[in-house]
C-alpha cells in the first residue's frame, strides 16, 4: 500500500519524492559510523533562558526515525521553547542539535526546512486571503520565476494530500476554513517543503474528537511513509493512542524519557506534575429552591453562515449550578453560548439575568447585568498578546470605570491585585507587566480565567475552560469553577471533552441540530456512552464509535469514565 502511494506522489511531485526516497533508501545504521546512535533527531543538552527565566535547562531529546514521539509537561514547562529551537525560531544558549547524528546549526526556520524539519505551530501562520494551495506553495512555487505553474501546484499537492489522507479543498481561501482544515493545510505546507521530521505543537487542542481521529490516522500514514513525528500534548489518552516514545519536561528539565510502554499512567502524571494529587470535583446539584440566576426563553441565534443555528432553546439556571453544554461540533451549542454572551445576534427570545430582562442584548449590557465570559478563541478574543498581564486581567473592569482613583487609573492597585491573581491561579510569569505573548499557551488561558472568575459574575459562560491546560492546571481550574459555584455563580460550561463535562457539572444539556435534546442531572448513572448517543440525536441506539465513546482522557480525570 505504501508503495502504490508513493508512486502516485511521484507522478507530479518531485520535491517530496526525493525526500521520502532519501528517508527510506538510506536505512539508519547502514552506512553510519557504528558509534552514532540511529537517532533521526537529537537534542543534546539544549539550554535556553529568557532573561532570568530558564525555559530549558540542558534538555536532551532523542527521536528515533519513523517514530511518533510525544513531549509532555505542565504549562510553561518549556515544551514549545524546545520545539522552537528545533525549528530554528529560537536559538539555544548552549547545546547541540543533531540530525542523523550530524550536528546542525539552525539559525532560522529556513535552515530547519532545508534540513527537512517542518513545524505546525499552535497558532497558525497562514495567509487568510490566499487559498489552501497558494498557502502551501507560497515561497516554493515550482515553475519559472516569472510564471507560476498553478496546474502543477494543484496536481502535486493533490497527490500529496490524497496519499496522506489530509483532505482539504485546495481552491478555498483559508479564511473560510475550520481550524481542523487549516491545520491540515499547515501540515501539507510542511510536507510540501520536504519535511521528514514533523513537529506538531498541541495539535489536538483545537480539534473535535472526530477531527482528532482523522489527524491521528494521517500521522500514522505519515510515519509509514517515512516521516518522523514529534508532538506536544496534555492528554495522556493521546499519548497512549499514538506515541512510541515520550519525553517529559518539568520546569525546563527533562524528568523522564523512554518508550511509552515503559510508563503507566500514574507514573506519567507523577512525572508531569510532580506527584500533586489530581482530582476534579463535581459541583453538587443546587437545591430546587435555589434562586434563579438566569433564564433564557425561546432563544434563536444566527450562526456564522447567516443561517439560524439555534432554534428556540429555553433554559433556566439556578444559582450555584454548573451546567455542561455538549454537542457534536456545529450543533448550535457554541452559538447558544455566544448568543447569551451578546456576541452573536439573538433573533428571538428573552434573556434574563438576575431577574433583569434587557431589551437590546449586547455584550456590554450582559456584563453589566453580571455576566462573565471566557471566549473560545483565547488568543484573539481572550487577550491582547502585546498587552501586559495586568491590562489583560482588568480590561473588563476598567471599561466599566473600575480601578480609578482621582479620575485616573489606579495602576498600583491593579498591579498588586494582579500579583495576587497570578499566585491564586499559579500563572507562570515574570510578573504582572510581562506581555501575554511571552506566556506559554496554558498560562494565557489562565489569565483569561483569572479575569472572568475574579470579577465575581452572577452567570459565568465558559467555552473550553481547560483547552491547552495541563492536568494539574485543569484540576485547579475545575476547583476554581466549583468554588465560584459554591458562592452562588451559575456556570454554563461548553466543552468538546465529554469527560470533562461529566467530571465537573451538576447538570448536562445536550445539543443536537440547534435544539436542546436532553437536559439531565449528572450522576454516576450518566456515562459518556449515554451522552455520546444523545449527541448523535438518538437516545436508544448510539453507534459504537460515537465521539464520547472514545477512550477516556486522563486529563481531566473522568468521573463518568469512557469506553
Amino acid at each position: 500500500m505504501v508503495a502504490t502511494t508513493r508512486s502516485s506522489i511521484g507522478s507530479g511531485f518531485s520535491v517530496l519524492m526525493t525526500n521520502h526516497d532519501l528517508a527510506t533508501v538510506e536505512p539508519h545504521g547502514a552506512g553510519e559510523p557504528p558509534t552514532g546512535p540511529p537517532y533521526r533527531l537529537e537534542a543534546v543538552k539544549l539550554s535556553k533562558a529568557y532573561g532570568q527565566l530558564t525555559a530549558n535547562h540542558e534538555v536532551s531529546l532523542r527521536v528515533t526515525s519513523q517514530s511518533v514521539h510525544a513531549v509532555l509537561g505542565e504549562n510553561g514547562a518549556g515544551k514549545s521553547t524546545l520545539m522552537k529551537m528545533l525549528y530554528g525560531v529560537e536559538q539555544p544558549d548552549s547545546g547541540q542539535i543533531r540530525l542523523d547524528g550530524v550536528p546542525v546549526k539552525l539559525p532560522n526556520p529556513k535552515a530547519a526546512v532545508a534540513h527537512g524539519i517542518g513545524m505546525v505551530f499552535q497558532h497558525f501562520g497562514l495567509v487568510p486571503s490566499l487559498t489552501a494551495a497558494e498557502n502551501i506553495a507560497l515561497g516554493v512555487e515550482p515553475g519559472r520565476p516569472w510564471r507560476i505553474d498553478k496546474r502543477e501546484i494543484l496536481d502535486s499537492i493533490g497527490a500529496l494530500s490524497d496519499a496522506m489522507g489530509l483532505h482539504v479543498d485546495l481552491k478555498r481561501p483559508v479564511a473560510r476554513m475550520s481550524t481542523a482544515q487549516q491545520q491540515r493545510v499547515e501540515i501539507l505546507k510542511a510536507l510540501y517543503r520536504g519535511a521528514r521530521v514533523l513537529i506538531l505543537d498541541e495539535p489536538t487542542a483545537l480539534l473535535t474528537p472526530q477531527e482528532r481521529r482523522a489527524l491521528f490516522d494521517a500521522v500514522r500514514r505519515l510515519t509509514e511513509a517515512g516521516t518522523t513525528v514529534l508532538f506536544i500534548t496534555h492528554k495522556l489518552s493521546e499519548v497512549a493512542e499514538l506515541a512510541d516514545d515520550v519525553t517529559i519536561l518539568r520546569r525546563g528539565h527533562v524528568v523522564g524519557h523512554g518508550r511509552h510502554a515503559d510508563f503507566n499512567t500514574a507514573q506519567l502524571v507523577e512525572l508531569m506534575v510532580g506527584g500533586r494529587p489530581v482530582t476534579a470535583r463535581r459541583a453538587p446539584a443546587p437545591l430546587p429552591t435555589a434562586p434563579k440566576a438566569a433564564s433564557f426563553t425561546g432563544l434563536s441565534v444566527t450562526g456564522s453562515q447567516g443561517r439560524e443555528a439555534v432554534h428556540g432553546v429555553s433554559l433556566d439556571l439556578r444559582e450555584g449550578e454548573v451546567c455542561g453544554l455538549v454537542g457534536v461540533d456545529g450543533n448550535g451549542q457554541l452559538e447558544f453560548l455566544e448568543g447569551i454572551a451578546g456576541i452573536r445576534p439573538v433573533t428571538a427570545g428573552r434573556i434574563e439575568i438576575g431577574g433583569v430582562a434587557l431589551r437590546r442584548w449586547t455584550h456590554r449590557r450582559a456584563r453589566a447585568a453580571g455576566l462573565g465570559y471566557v471566549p473560545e478563541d483565547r488568543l484573539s478574543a481572550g487577550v491582547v498578546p502585546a498587552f501586559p498581564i495586568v491590562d489583560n486581567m482588568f480590561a473588563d473592569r476598567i471599561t466599566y470605570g473600575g480601578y480609578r482613583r482621582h479620575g485616573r487609573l489606579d495602576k498600583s492597585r491593579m498591579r498588586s491585585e494582579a500579583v495576587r491573581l497570578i499566585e491564586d491561579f499559579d500563572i507562570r510569569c515574570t510578573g504582572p507587566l510581562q506581555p501575554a505573548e511571552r506566556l506559554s499557551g496554558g498560562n494565557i488561558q489562565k489569565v483569561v480565567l483569572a479575569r472572568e472568575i475574579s470579577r465575581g459574575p452572577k452567570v459565568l459562560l465558559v467555552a473550553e475552560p481547560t483547552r491547552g491546560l495541563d492536568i494539574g492546571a485543569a484540576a485547579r481550574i475545575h476547583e476554581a469553577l466549583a468554588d465560584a459555584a459554591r458562592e452562588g455563580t451559575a456556570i454554563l460550561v461548553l466543552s468538546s471533552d465529554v469527560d470533562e463535562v461529566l467530571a465537573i457539572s451538576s447538570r448536562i444539556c445536550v445539543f443536537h441540530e440547534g435544539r436542546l435534546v436532553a437536559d439531565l442531572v449528572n450522576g454516576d448513572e450518566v456515562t459518556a456512552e449515554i451522552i455520546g448517543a444523545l449527541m448523535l440525536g438518538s437516545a436508544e441506539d448510539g453507534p459504537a464509535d460515537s465521539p464520547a465513546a472514545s477512550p477516556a482522557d486522563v486529563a481531566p480525570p473522568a468521573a463518568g469514565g469512557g469506553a
Partner: protein
Amino acid sequence: MSASETIAVVPRQSGAWRRAVLRGGGRLAATVALAIIVIFVLLAMSADDPAAALGSLLSGPFTSSFRTGQWLSDSANLMLSGAAVAMVFRAGQFSLGAEGQILVGALAAGAAVLHLPSFPGVFVVGLTLGALAGFLFGLVPGLMKAYGGSDEIVSTLMLNYVATYGFALLINRYLQPASAGYPVSDFFDPAAFLPSLRIGQLTIGLALPFAIGCCVAVWYLINWTKTGFEMGAVGASVPFAQATGMRVRRSVWLSMALSGLIAGLAGAVIAEGSTHRLIVGLSANIGFDGILVALLTANRPLLIPLAAVAYGYIRTGGDIAQLSSGIPREVITTLQGFLILAVTARAPLAWIRHRAGRRRPAHGGPVIPGPAPLRAAASSQRTGS
C-alpha cells in the same frame, strides 16, 4: 508549586520609562543623522555651492532671532498636528485627515474673529471654535466607520479635498476683500493674535507651551484614563475589546473626533499665531508632516515635542535655504520622503537585529515576509507603566 518563586520583582516604573525614552531618542538621533547625510548628497548634486547651501540649511534657523522664532512656531504647529495623529494611530484608526481638519479649524477660528467685535481674549473664542470645528470634521469619518463600516483611510483623504477646496471657496465667497486677487482674508484684529512672549529679540508664541501641554494631555489620555485604555484595546484587537464589554464603536468615532479636535486647534493656532489671516495654503502641509512626526516617535506622545522641534528645524532650514541659496523645494521634499522611508521601513533594522542575534520574532509562528504593518506598529506600544 507556588508561583511566587517564578514571579520576579516588578520592574520599577521609572526605570522602564527612562529606558523607553532613551530607546526612542536614540532611534530618533540615528534617523536624523542619516537624513543629514542624504541631504548633503542631494545638495552636492543640485546646488551651485553645496557647502553654503548646507550651511544655510543647517544653521538657518539660528541666523536671526526672527528665524529662530519662526522655527519654534513651526515646531509648535507640528507638535499639535503630530499629537493629533499619534492619538488616532494609537487608537488603531488610520485617519489621515489632519490636513483637512487643520483647515476647517483655521476657517472656523478665522471666521469667528473676523466677524466678532474685538475684545481682549477674543483669540480664545477662535481657539474654541477651531477645536469644535475640528472635532466635528473628525467625527464625520468616525461615525462613517463606526456605523457604516467605511474605510477611514479613504474617507479622511477624501474629506481633505473637501476641506481644501471648501476652505478656498468660502474665503473667496465671504471673506476675501475686493482688492485681493486670490483667496485671502483681511488680517485679524491684534486682539485675536495668539499672545507671545518677547525675550530680548526672540518672540516665543503661546503656541509652544500650549502644544507641549497638548502632547502631555494626549499621553495622559492614552495611558491613564479609562477612555484611553479602551481606545488602545480597540486599536490592538477588536475581538478582545468586544469580548471584554468595551464600546468599540464609541471608541472608533471618539478617537477620530478627538484627533480632529487637536488638529482643529492646530489650525486655529496657525491662523491666530502664524499667518494672522486666512489664506490658501495656510496649513503648509503641517497635517501630513504631523503623520511623519508621529511615526518618528512611534506614536509616543511625550517624544513628539522632540521630534517636532527636530523636524521643524529641517523644515525651517529648508525654507531659509530655498530663499538664500536657491536650493530647490524638491530637495526638501525628497528629504521628507526619505525620512518617511527611514522611519517606516523597519525591515532592514529588524534584519540587522536578527543578524546580531538579539531579537526573536514575538510568538512562534512562521514569519511572513513583507513590510511590517502600520497597524502593528501603532498598537504595540502599550506598556504597563
